[in-house]
């Protein structure tokens, strides 16, 4: 088991190196002089030269890459061109709202989506299944930000139930304001996630309900509710958890948009500000940071399979 965990961790290293290489090459292989692109249209020759130095663009590409990898391995994500602060520090300053938004969204989505998907699967073909599936298709079709504005318009501007924008930290400003401000962004971001998880839950449970052991459970005289809870859902868990893991990438993309709509000072806003300022080290650092999170979370999910299914042994 320990050996397997060790092996799995080792296996993520090539993936991370590939991500790093990709991010690295993205800048170097883009058309034109990257330093000039970053410097923007109104930069002087000195500006361009300064950026070139800062990014180490004048050295051979292999040297650049190895040195950069070395820095990454020590947790150095680079330095912002404009604020001159380390990117890791900028991330640390902005991570709290993003983390809370992601957490509330995942918790809320799972709590809503798994029961919905299970009911839809159990009553596959009925009106309730059709409503759930319609909601799910709809959830995949409405752009996150449009949904955000509709919710703001209805719940904040018209009904005045919730604040329009901003973020309040639960540590410094209290739990009440925190929830008041995070409710709308969470609802907004959850819709697509609920759609995703409910769909996978439904498909997975439908498949499991066809299995022989479900028939065995019924042959024992087990009640339908217990058949669902004890036999079906437990066996359907692996694909559901997998889709949650893959959905993390979708969630992060949604966070960027949601933070922009609700004016939340998190990592998503950091990305957008960096794009507008062409502060490339920040973009680079954030991409690496997010894919690191994705890879680690999916590694944990992979390892959790053995808890859910005794057949998966390492």
């Amino acid at each position, binding site marked *: 088991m320990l050996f397997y965990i060790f092996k799995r961790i080792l296996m993520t290293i090539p993936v991370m190196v590939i991500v790093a290489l990709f991010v690295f090459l993205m800048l170097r292989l883009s058309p034109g002089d990257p330093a000039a692109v970053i410097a923007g249209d109104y930069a002087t020759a000195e500006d361009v030269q300064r950026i070139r130095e800062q990014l180490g663009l004048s050295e051979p590409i292999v040297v650049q890459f190895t040195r950069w990898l070395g820095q990454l391995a020590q947790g150095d994500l680079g330095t912002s061109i404009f604020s001159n602060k380390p990117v890791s520090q900028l991330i640390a300053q902005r991570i709290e709202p993003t983390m809370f938004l992601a957490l509330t969204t995942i918790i809320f989505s799972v709590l809503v989506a798994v029961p919905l998907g299970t009911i839809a699967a159990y009553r596959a073909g009925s009106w309730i299944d059709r409503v759930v599936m319609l909601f799910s298709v709809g959830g995949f079709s409405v752009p996150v930000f449009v949904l955000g504005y509709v919710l703001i318009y209805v719940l904040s501007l018209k009904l005045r139930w919730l604040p329009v924008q901003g973020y309040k930290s639960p540590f410094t400003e209290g739990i009440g304001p925190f929830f008041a401000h995070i409710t709308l962004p969470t609802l907004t971001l959850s819709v697509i996630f609920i759609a995703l998880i409910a769909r996978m839950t439904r498909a997975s449970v439908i498949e499991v309900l066809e299995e022989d052991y479900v028939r065995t459970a019924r042959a024992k005289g087990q009640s339908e509710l217990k058949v669902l809870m004890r036999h079906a859902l437990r066996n359907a868990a692996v694909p559901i958890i997998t889709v949650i893991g893959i959905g993390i990438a979708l969630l992060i993309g949604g966070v960027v948009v949601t933070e922009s709509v609700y004016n939340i000072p998190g990592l998503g806003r950091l990305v957008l500000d960096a794009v507008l300022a062409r502060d490339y080290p920040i973009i680079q650092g954030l991409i690496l940071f997010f*894919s690191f999170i994705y890879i680690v979370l999916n590694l944990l999910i992979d390892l959790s399979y053995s808890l859910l299914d005794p057949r998966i042994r390492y």
Partner: protein
Amino acid sequence: MVQNAPTLPQTPEQPSIWRIALRNRSVFWGGLMLVIIALVALTGGLFTADPMDINPMSRLKPPGEHGLFGTDQLGRDVFSRVINGARISLTVGTAVAVISIAIGLFLGLVAGYFRYMDALIMRVMDGLMSIPAILLAIALISLSGATLLTVVAAIVIPEIPRVVRLVRSVVLTVREEPYVEAAIAAGTKTWLIMGRHVLPNTIAPLIVQATYVCGSAMLTEAILGFLGAGIPPEIPSWGNIMSEGRTFFQLTPWIIFFPGAALAVTVLAVNIVGDGLRDSLDPRIARTMR
């Protein structure tokens, strides 16, 4: 689902994929909706006002007297802009679907059939999948400059891994089938086995996947436009219209709501077709319906 049970036995030939698909109600109605949207997109520009026409006298007017959907902060007709935006959305969606399926199909076939390429291709795909699509697209566009072409490319790249995974899994399943082994035993060359016995099995799942990619590409394009990182702002794409509407949202919400609704309806139509296709073409789902 009130849908005809698969009645295969007595037909002289296996019905074509399209025949099976059109029997499905979702495919039919979703497809009809899409055809109408496409017609509007293609011909709408002929009947509406110039979407670029600035009219300082009627700025930020509500829907009604100043055009069906009102006007924006430069006095341009929102209705006309939304109609013209459809063309861009559909173009991006279709282009991304076609290109990413083509690249993904090729890589997936190679990864699935040639063991020595598998590890390499799949690690690269794992790496790509770990980067959030929107972030990747933003970064690519900000580096290479925003044009229709770079936006399409930036949306294509993160879509590829999913297609590769799908194709690869189909190939891995099919190559274990006895009929493929029989073809190997009959001395059939590898490329012929791929073309005759493996490739046809990927078509149905790929058609389904293509619709989902198309829908998600249209959404991504709009999000990029909305964030100000997409197609150049002077082109009236739905994302760009909504991006410009942000500033005055509290005053004039319609500038966001109308293009938003148009986008949602279009993507919904695409996704409904996708679901219908999946129900009627995917043998795994078909099995549970039996």
